[in-house]
């Protein structure tokens, strides 16, 4: 079966989730769709599934434009999807799950014909070359078997285009191999597979064709044999063209980077939610250096940052700030020792949105001179300090008493910088500084980072915007799966190599 889409667009409020997306999936093809989180893959799937209706464009099934108004209709048209979290009923047996909603019946009383069910299940399993214990409850079955059952269940009911959303995220490497074998067999037997992933290696190994999405658009599509992993990585990250690559300013390398402001040794820490724990981070930041930390989000960046600034307790390892062990220091001790922190989560951690602009720009300094005089707070000094800090970074505001919520995103972020740089930190940990900031704001923030460094401070820059990191950093670390997997100096860093390290989790040879 042939599945296509022409000019699909879908907006949620002001966010354009899909913009003019076209797609052509040939029959008997394994077609991979890759892209970062938020690139628009899930929205596209929802449109193909009929969960959402496109604002513009159409879906084409077997060369016929087709309005898919509901998941049920998608199913009838032969499109079936396996979600990241499986949909089997845990209390029912695999056999019951297999026929649920489409039971074979026999006799005048329409009894469920379990034998027929078992036979059809076995037939499909044999075709796929696997064995299934049909009487086991789904809840106690290993996930990869559940996945098989789900696939068989869809096939049994006439699915000809199988959409799989990140199917390998729950599987062990060996099981991934088995799944791929199964998918290849299915393809050879006539099923079309649409495979969503952000693991490039897997995609290159399995797919016949790969389509890259970025910021809601299809940016690249190619047969796997006609491209290379680095090229795909390049498009996923959305980097500059290699020719236009602008090497970073060279003057920096002359600095005495051996004077280490921050040093991290064998740092391990537990995970946030489903993210990776830190598995022994080794890194340093030299004096006057901007060091970038690149990585696909959720590979340990947040944990590392929280360990550095004192919001998370490491399980082992050490952190040194200017030679002083701060591994278990309190947040306040770190700040007093010269650490500044621009949080990635501006709305919940970088600012107290309902507090005044004044409080937001002086918080952390309420016990320092000149705000504190004796035991009490000098309100005049507090006001002046706030105004001074804000004007230095050109923050536009109405009144200091307004809630900081009333500022635009860019001014909010500048307020954070105004606060965190006012105390002349020796190391500024900056996480996702330009997230949610418009283009002019981005330029201003980059200028701020440069000026801070010019004053002699060191910066650890964590960002998902690879261009930003490469553009600003003297050196770049690449983090994947809780480890530093690569390091490259800013001069020779390019989007393709770093991007590939990020996505494959290994340093490139040479």
């Amino acid at each position, binding site marked *: 079966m042939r599945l296509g889409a022409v000019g699909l667009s879908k907006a949620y409020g002001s966010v354009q989730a899909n913009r003019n997306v076209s797609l052509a999936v040939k029959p008997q093809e394994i077609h991979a769709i890759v892209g970062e989180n938020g690139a628009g893959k899930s929205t596209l799937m929802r449109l193909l599934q009929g969960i959402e209706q496109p604002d513009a464009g159409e879906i084409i099934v077997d060369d016929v434009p087709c309005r898919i108004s509901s998941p049920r209709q998608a199913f009838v048209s032969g499109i079936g999807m396996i979600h990241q979290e499986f949909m089997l009923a845990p209390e029912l047996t695999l056999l019951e799950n297999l026929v649920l909603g489409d039971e074979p019946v026999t006799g005048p009383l329409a009894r469920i014909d379990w034998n027929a069910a078992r036979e059809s299940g076995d037939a499909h399993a044999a075709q796929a070359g696997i064995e299934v214990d049909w009487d086991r409850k789904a809840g106690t079955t290993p996930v990869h078997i559940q996945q098989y059952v789900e696939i068989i269940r869809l096939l049994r009911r006439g699915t000809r285009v199988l959409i799989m959303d990140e199917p390998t995220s729950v599987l062990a490497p060996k099981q991934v191999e088995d799944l791929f074998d199964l998918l290849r067999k299915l393809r050879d037997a006539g099923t079309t597979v649409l495979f969503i992933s952000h693991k490039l290696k897997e995609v290159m190994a399995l797919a016949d064709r790969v389509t890259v999405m970025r910021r809601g658009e299809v940016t690249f599509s190619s047969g796997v044999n006609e491209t290379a992993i680095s090229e795909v990585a390049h498009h996923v990250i959305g980097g500059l063209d290699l020719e236009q690559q602008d090497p970073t300013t060279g003057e920096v390398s002359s600095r005495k980077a051996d004077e280490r402001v921050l040093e991290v040794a064998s740092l391990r820490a537990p995970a946030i939610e489903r993210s990776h724990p830190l598995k022994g981070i080794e890194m340093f930041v030299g004096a006057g250096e901007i060091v970038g930390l690149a990585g696909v989000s959720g590979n340990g960046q947040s944990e590392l940052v929280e360990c550095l*600034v*004192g*919001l998370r307790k490491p399980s082992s390892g050490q952190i040194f700030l200017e030679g002083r062990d701060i591994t278990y220091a*309190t*947040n*306040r001790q*770190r*700040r*007093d020792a010269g650490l500044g*922190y621009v*949080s990635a*989560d501006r709305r*919940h*951690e*970088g*600012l*107290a*949105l*309902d*507090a005044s602009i004044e*409080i937001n720009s002086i*918080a*952390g300094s*309420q*016990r320092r001179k000149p*705000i*504190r005089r004796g*035991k*009490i*707070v000098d*309100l005049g000094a507090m006001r002046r300090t706030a105004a001074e800090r804000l004007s230095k970074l050109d923050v*536009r505001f*109405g009144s200091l008493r*307004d*809630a900081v*919520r*009333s*500022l*635009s995103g860019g*001014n909010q972020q500048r307020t954070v910088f105004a*606060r965190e740089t006012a105390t002349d930190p020796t190391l500024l940990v900056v996480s996702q500084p330009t997230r949610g900031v418009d283009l002019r704001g981005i330029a201003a923030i980059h200028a701020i980072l440069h000026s801070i460094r010019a004053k002699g401070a060191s910066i650890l820059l964590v960002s998902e915007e690879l261009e930003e990191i490469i553009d600003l950093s003297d050196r770049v670390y690449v983090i994947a799966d809780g480890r530093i997997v690569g390091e490259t100096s800013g001069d020779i860093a390019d989007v393709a190599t770093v991007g590939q390290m990020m996505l494959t989790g290994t340093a490139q040879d040479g």
Partner: protein
Amino acid sequence: MAEAATPLRERSIERLEKGFGLVFPFFAALVVASLVLLVIGKNPLLVFSLIAEEAFGSTNRIAATLSATTPLLFTGVATAICFRAGVFNVGVEGAFVVGGLGAAFIGFALPSSLGILLVPIGFALAATVSAFWLAVPGYLLARYEIEEVVSTLMLNFVALGVTGYLVNGPLLSEKSGNNVTPLIHESAELVRLIPPSTLHAGFLVGLFILAAYGFWIRRTPAGIESAIVGQNRRFASAVGISIPATIILVMVISGIVSGLGGASHALGQLHRFAEGFSPGYGFTGMAVALLGRNTAIGILFGSILFGALASAGTTVQLFSDIPLDIVNIIEGTVMIFAVVELGRIALFRRKAVK
């Protein structure tokens, strides 16, 4: 465009919050009470003017109102200081009661020869006992993240149980079959400000506490920090403020203020401890704090409002057949709308953000 529009809307919300905060629930309550009065065939205007007259119609009545206001000044501040830091301490009631028993104990158990010294000793003991009383749930919250709402609520029952036991056993007045301690020595009694009214020096202590609270929240690093913790805990710890230390601090201060309130009530008003020592001052204090948006001036007006309802609501029954229920309806509606008002502002704000 968007940048210009947002601040304007935000500012109007803030004005709404400050201006209507106290006034809106009050008028809403009047409307509800009016409807009830009309249904039972009374003229709301006359009833309200009668209540106003009983609350503020003469020096004696103003003094009676302020006398009823006094405990609420303490419990309002004790609650607000925690609410402001995002700590939902509902244990002021219990701390007020144990503090009151402590002060009363000093008042009758120590020799009367100590004279006026009994007063500071009584206040000090009450503050100490109540500070420890609330430090416990504070520590449990700070150290083990044990829900303060549950622990402080439970402690209220403990307070009632313990004081109930003491006042019916070891500390029971020999002269009484009922659940009261002996009277305190006369020298331990707080002076009355406008005799013969029961308005006593505890009111001045309350005003002082209120002013100190107003100063503390604006003019001390700890006061500013506690507000930041209340606004956003992640932010607070990111800028180097210790959440556990702040939680324990506000709980201890809340305990001290509650204890002083209990002492003022025991030494100034009842001159003993009795079962039913507090008819729920701690809980009315929560309404006062909510109504007053945790500001000193708001707490002052809030506690006068509830004090007026308590004093006028009672004596107005002498001169009309308005049942106490009407006053209860007004009080209850004010509280409900104070809470609803909070929720409404939060909702409005969320919409404005979107």
